């Protein structure tokens, strides 16, 4: 697949007539990066599994194909052509933007190879485009996976030409998603000062997650589908909505309708993604590499100062002495607490999940075509707070799944050079750390909000929710492969599945909510389950704590 994509990229060579960006160097970097991706799957401090492994990516592609089929059925069964196409392109735009923010931000903003590549005659534009192409290799495969169902149904239902055009508009939408995401990143890197970038980049990701999720949820509701169906004179804001451009362009091809409105939409659909890349390349990419170097270079003197003056126990130390039973757990608890709070890569991958939490909270307000006020009034009589009860476990399991990966994975020699009999204790410390740091605050915040909104009737469900959440969390860990925290090398292919995994976790939360909902009226069953869940979680944690070296993946 990679070789085929490289051949496709090589077709773009005539577009790169100038020396900068240097097309040949882009391809050299791309080929090398892809070779490395194929090898870097199972790296740890002690062991390097050198098999060429593509299972991870295949699994992610299967997940995206299944998600793609869901929207594909709309293409197959829904009645109005343009409505179908607006929904499909909105879905593609949202999925790709989210994949870029969640899975590939760290690839774009990678600082580890600054010394290797930027010391060679490689310009900022060349490095930027090489990284973009690298990311596009994966996006291309995800697009095929997400789109294949809809494309096939479209060939079947609307004919060959529309089917081919749909493939074209799908890829234009992907380009647009890349453009919008990169535009936001590069604009930030261009206009914020070096130290500001370091401080705000993680928050900026939360902002982007919320922005894209809201756009996906809210914009289709803004579109007046009756108006879209008429399309003779569209409202002005339809010209600001890329999915409408794509849908109306496809209608022009389907019905051979080429009036002013249709032609202007076709022009927007084709010109904006291409012009967008030109703007990126011309105005924003030149400062990219020096800003990247700055990201790596700057030292956070503020933090150094606080660590010097802090004599008394800080929060992590206090918490660690309260919740852990031995010194190893305490050490792992604090290590996890500190690194998750300071490591830029961790934050870059975790903060989008924090964004989802906010997004899902507010989605309740826009659940259907009613106004926010009507929704709020209606919500009071529902049991929607069940959804909120299970969001913190999503946040916590995302944080836990990121723990093994760290740029400085080789520092994990410390686990092997110290007399550590039960490495399971390290895992227990790490689990407790993410629970105390992420689960409890998120749960408390959602509890108080729910208490204020729904009143005392939520109390019992939130109590049961704690045990159900924690039981599910430890059971997920128990059945996963066990890694020690910060002991594995991050790899593009593993990152590439993060958004897919988030979607699966949300499905799991849906099941939990369903289960809880079914038992909502039977408080005595829930009550009886609390000791069972508590004992189950305790036994599982004990079993994890006793894990020996041979059970740990190194």
């Amino acid at each position, binding site marked *: 697949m990679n070789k085929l994509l490289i051949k496709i990229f090589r077709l773009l060579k005539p577009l790169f007539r100038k020396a*900068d960006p240097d097309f*040949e*160097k882009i391809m*050299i*970097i791309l080929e*090398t990066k892809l*070779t*490395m991706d194929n*090898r*870097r799957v199972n*790296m740890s401090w002690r062991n*390097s599994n*050198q098999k060429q492994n593509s299972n991870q990516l295949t699994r992610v592609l299967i997940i995206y194909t299944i998600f793609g089929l869901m929207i594909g059925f709309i293409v197959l069964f829904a009645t109005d052509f343009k409505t179908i196409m607006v929904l499909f392109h909105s879905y593609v735009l949202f999925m790709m933007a989210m994949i870029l923010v969640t899975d590939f931000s760290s690839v774009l903003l990678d600082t580890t*190879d*600054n*010394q*290797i*590549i*930027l*010391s*060679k*005659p*490689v*310009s900022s534009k060349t490095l930027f485009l090489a990284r973009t192409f690298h990311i596009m290799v994966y996006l291309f495969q995800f697009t095929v996976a997400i789109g294949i169902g809809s494309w096939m149904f479209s060939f079947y239902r609307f004919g060959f030409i529309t089917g081919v055009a749909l493939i074209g508009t799908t890829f234009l939408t992907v380009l647009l998603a890349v453009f919008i995401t990169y535009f936001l990143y590069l604009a930030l890197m261009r206009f914020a000062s*070096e*130290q500001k970038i370091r401080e705000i980049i993680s928050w900026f990701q939360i902002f982007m997650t919320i922005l894209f999720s809201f756009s996906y949820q809210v914009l289709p509701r803004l579109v007046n589908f009756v108006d879209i169906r008429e399309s003779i004179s569209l409202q002005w804001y339809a010209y600001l909505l890329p999915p409408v451009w794509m849908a109306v362009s496809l209608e022009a091809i389907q019905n051979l309708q080429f009036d002013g409105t249709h032609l202007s939409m076709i022009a927007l659909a084709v010109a904006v993604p291409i012009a967008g890349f030109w703007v990126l390349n011309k105005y924003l990419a030149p400062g990219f590499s*020096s800003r990247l*170097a*700055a990201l790596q*270079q*700057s*030292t*956070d*003197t*503020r933090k150094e100062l606080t660590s010097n003056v802090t004599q008394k126990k800080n929060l992590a130390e206090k918490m660690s002495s309260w919740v852990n039973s031995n010194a190893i757990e305490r050490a792992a608890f604090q290590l996890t607490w500190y690194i998750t709070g300071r490591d830029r890569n961790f934050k870059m991958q975790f903060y989008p999940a924090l964004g989802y939490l906010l997004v899902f909270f507010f989605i309740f307000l826009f659940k259907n075509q009613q106004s926010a006020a009507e929704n709020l009034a209606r919500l009071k009589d529902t049991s929607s707070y069940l959804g909120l009860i299970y969001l913190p476990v999503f946040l916590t399991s995302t944080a836990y799944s990121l723990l093994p990966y760290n740029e400085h994975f080789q520092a994990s020699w410390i686990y092997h050079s110290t007399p550590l009999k039960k490495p399971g204790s390290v895992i227990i410390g790490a689990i407790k750390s993410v629970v105390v740091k992420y689960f409890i605050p998120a749960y408390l915040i959602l509890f108080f909000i729910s208490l204020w909104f729904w009143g005392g009737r939520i109390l019992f469900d939130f109590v049961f929710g704690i045990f159900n959440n924690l039981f599910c969390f430890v059971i997920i860990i128990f059945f996963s492969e066990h890694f020690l925290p910060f002991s594995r090398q991050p790899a593009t292919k593993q990152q590439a599945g993060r958004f897919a995994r988030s979607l699966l976790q949300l499905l799991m939360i849906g099941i939990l909510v369903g289960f809880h909902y079914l038992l909502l009226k039977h408080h005595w069953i829930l009550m009886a389950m609390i000791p069972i869940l508590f004992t189950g979680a305790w036994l599982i944690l004990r079993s994890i704590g006793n894990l020996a070296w041979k059970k740990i993946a190194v």
Partner: protein
Amino acid sequence: MAVIQTQNVAKQYNGQYVLKGISLTIEPGQIIGYIGPNGAGKSTTIKILSGILDEFEGEASVLGMDVRKQALDIKQYIGYIPENAALYEVLTPMEYLRFAGRLYGMGENDILHKSTELLRLFKLSENAEQRMNGFSKGMKQKVLLISGLMHNPQIIFLDEPLSGLDANAVILVKEILLQLKQSGKTIFYSSHIMDVVEKLSDRIIIINQGEIIADGSFEDLRKLGDTGSLEKIFTSLTGSTGHGSTAGEFIDILSH
């Protein structure tokens, strides 16, 4: 003509200056020893001069080219060997050197010939097709050295080049550096290993807290105060004295 020229080069991070107005004029065909304690600004200077960092105050030119405006042209004529063994360890030495050589615009045959021969000289022929994640630090350092020199640069920036090398390799690298100098190359050499700097360098620049505090030949520096080794001169100039009592205190804490 000077090959490196800087005028009041300064660089700040988070409002703190790590370089505070460095002015240098470096003639061709010299080995410059650039030494200083950790955090003194050595690596930042090298990154500015090799075009990796382009946001700084003051003026800097290399081979008559402006570092800010012509970084790409400069990089073609310089070799940069960074402090840590920064290379893609999942590649083999041959793959990595091919990657580096191609980025320097070298021909495939030239890359193959030089990689094979230079790896042989460093006794790495048998490892040429093995992935580098199992390599020792010294083996990686050798590959890094080759990757920074294979395009035959005019100026070579070395940041701790001897770190991790075995005794024989250290002697070989020292000899290589001397012969490179004799062939007219300029070597900008940053290191903590004082006796090597003392023996190799035509000129020694000591930097402390972002400022140059001494600049001259070893003989010139001896006139500044301490008449002993470079190590003694360095510690007296950078104020890092009292190591004996610190060591005593260290042992004392360990045993109580």
